[in-house]
């Protein structure tokens, strides 16, 4: 425990707990409306419209998947071309060495393979996962985010964050409970 830190700086943020997805969505909209920017929402299932409510930036994952998938096509097709035409040309069934229809299934599979791997890996990287420690778990009731409760956290890094006022603001949203999140 360092002594030179002020109390505010050892705080990760202020968290409010809600009973339903609708309340969480409404709270997220009003928090954005009040000028807070570093806000995150936690729910047991994806809440439709949350991206817009939190004004989250567009995910770059689809673009990465497209690039990964097209790379997979090129790699699969290129491998088949290199093997069948350049390095080991073997005549099969009297067909030309470059028999592209036969290349399509493998190229298709490598497209799906690299596309899928890119989706999973880039999603994990962008989310900063795996993440062995996150301050929100210091709030005991946060385990309910896995089952039946909805949480909104205003982070201390927000320029508008102020321990007292932010707490008062969150209480004004009529949550079930407001708690401080220790760093």
């Amino acid at each position, binding site marked *: 425990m360092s002594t030179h830190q002020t109390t505010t700086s050892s705080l990760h943020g202020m968290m409010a707990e809600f009973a339903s997805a609708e309340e969480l969505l409404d709270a997220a909209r009003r928090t954005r409306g009040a000028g807070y920017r570093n806000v995150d929402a936690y729910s047991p299932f994806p809440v439709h419209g949350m991206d817009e409510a939190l004004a989250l930036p567009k995910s770059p994952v689809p673009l990465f998947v*497209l690039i990964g998938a097209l790379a997979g096509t090129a790699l699969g097709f290129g491998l088949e071309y290199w093997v069948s035409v350049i390095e080991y040309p073997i005549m099969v*069934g*009297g067909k030309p060495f470059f028999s592209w*229809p*036969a290349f*399509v*299934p493998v190229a298709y599979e490598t497209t799906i393979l690299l596309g899928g791997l890119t989706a999973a890996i880039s999603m994990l990287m962008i989310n900063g996962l795996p993440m062995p420690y996150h301050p929100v778990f210091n709030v005991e009731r946060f385990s309910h985010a896995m089952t039946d409760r909805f949480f909104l956290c205003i982070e201390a890094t927000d320029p508008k964050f102020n321990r007292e006022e932010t707490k008062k603001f969150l209480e004004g949203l009529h949550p079930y409970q407001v708690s401080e999140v220790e760093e």
Partner: protein
Amino acid sequence: MNNADSNRALLEGAQKRWLTIGVAGALLCAAGGFMNAEQFFRSYLFGFMFWFNLTLGCLAGVMTHNLTGGDWGIATRRQLEAGMRVLPLMALLFLPILFGVPKIYEWANPEHVAHSAILQQKAGYLNQSFFGIRAFVYFSIWLTLANLLYKWSGELERNPSLAIVRRMENLSGPGILIFFLTSTLAAFDWVMSLEPHWYSTIYGLLFIVGQGLAMLAFMIAVTTWLSNRGALSEAVGTKNFHDLGKLMHGFVVLWTYGSFSQFLIIWSANLPEETIWYAHRIAGGWKLIAIGLAVFHFLVPFFLLLIRNNKMKSNILVKIAGLILFMRFVDLYWFISPAFNTNGLGLHWLDLAAPVGIGGLWLATFYGQLRKRSLAPLPDPFAEAEQAMERA
């Protein structure tokens, strides 16, 4: 003028417009029939098959939605039902094909059969009377399914109850199964038998996927048209078009998957009695059409539909749907016409007049059916049924 009145005026206007086009097209076709009966029947089969596929696609759409639910079907329910209600017209329009069998199908020509041992073997199935009996059975099954489902959804609207929902589900499950079987056989009978020596087991599925694709594209087109004119509830919006766009994207890929599977297997085996089908379809100008199908029935719509915005904005999505409907025409033409024009592209003016004429009559009937019930999207049967149970 209130909303119901303006809707009625809108649909009546559309109905009259399409009826005029339909009657004009039918007269042109009749004139063409007197000039060249053989060409008339061939073009007529092509025009008939396109609109028939759309009709069956609507029937399959209603049954699928009964089983799966989903907002896409709630927003398009009335349009799907109206599409499936064109079936009696299609049964009527099938009659000319029945009369034209000797002019259309090689297996009905005794001279050809006398020279082919295979056709003699197949004569037990491919003969005129059994062809007619089968068509009668198919249409009876489809009409029964469509009439029952339409009647029950009317009951559901007047008096929501879980019993009706269950009844619709219980018919739709076996209904889909029977639909797949009868649709496959109809595709075999009416189109695949144009080249009676050739067969492909995936052929029926290709037609069914085409039916689903045409249905989705048509639903996007007609729903956008209605919604831009304020005829639909405000609940029909971005999310519904996004869903329909995603489904259409899936069907574009499914069409490609099926079409390429058939090609790859036949290309790999390289047997003359199988490759002849593709040989006819890449002869001369047909090759351009084949390449055009790969580009405009797969590549272009596939990449356009990858972009999220293109699926959510109905005015962009409707243009992609238009391209797909047009390519459905082209694909079907490429399936049917090379059977008669084996040496290269042979476009006759009747090939345009027949689909326009039948299409006019189809759309006039469609808008007439759409007028019969409120355009309000079908209430979610489950939510409605639950509310009804709570009230009781």
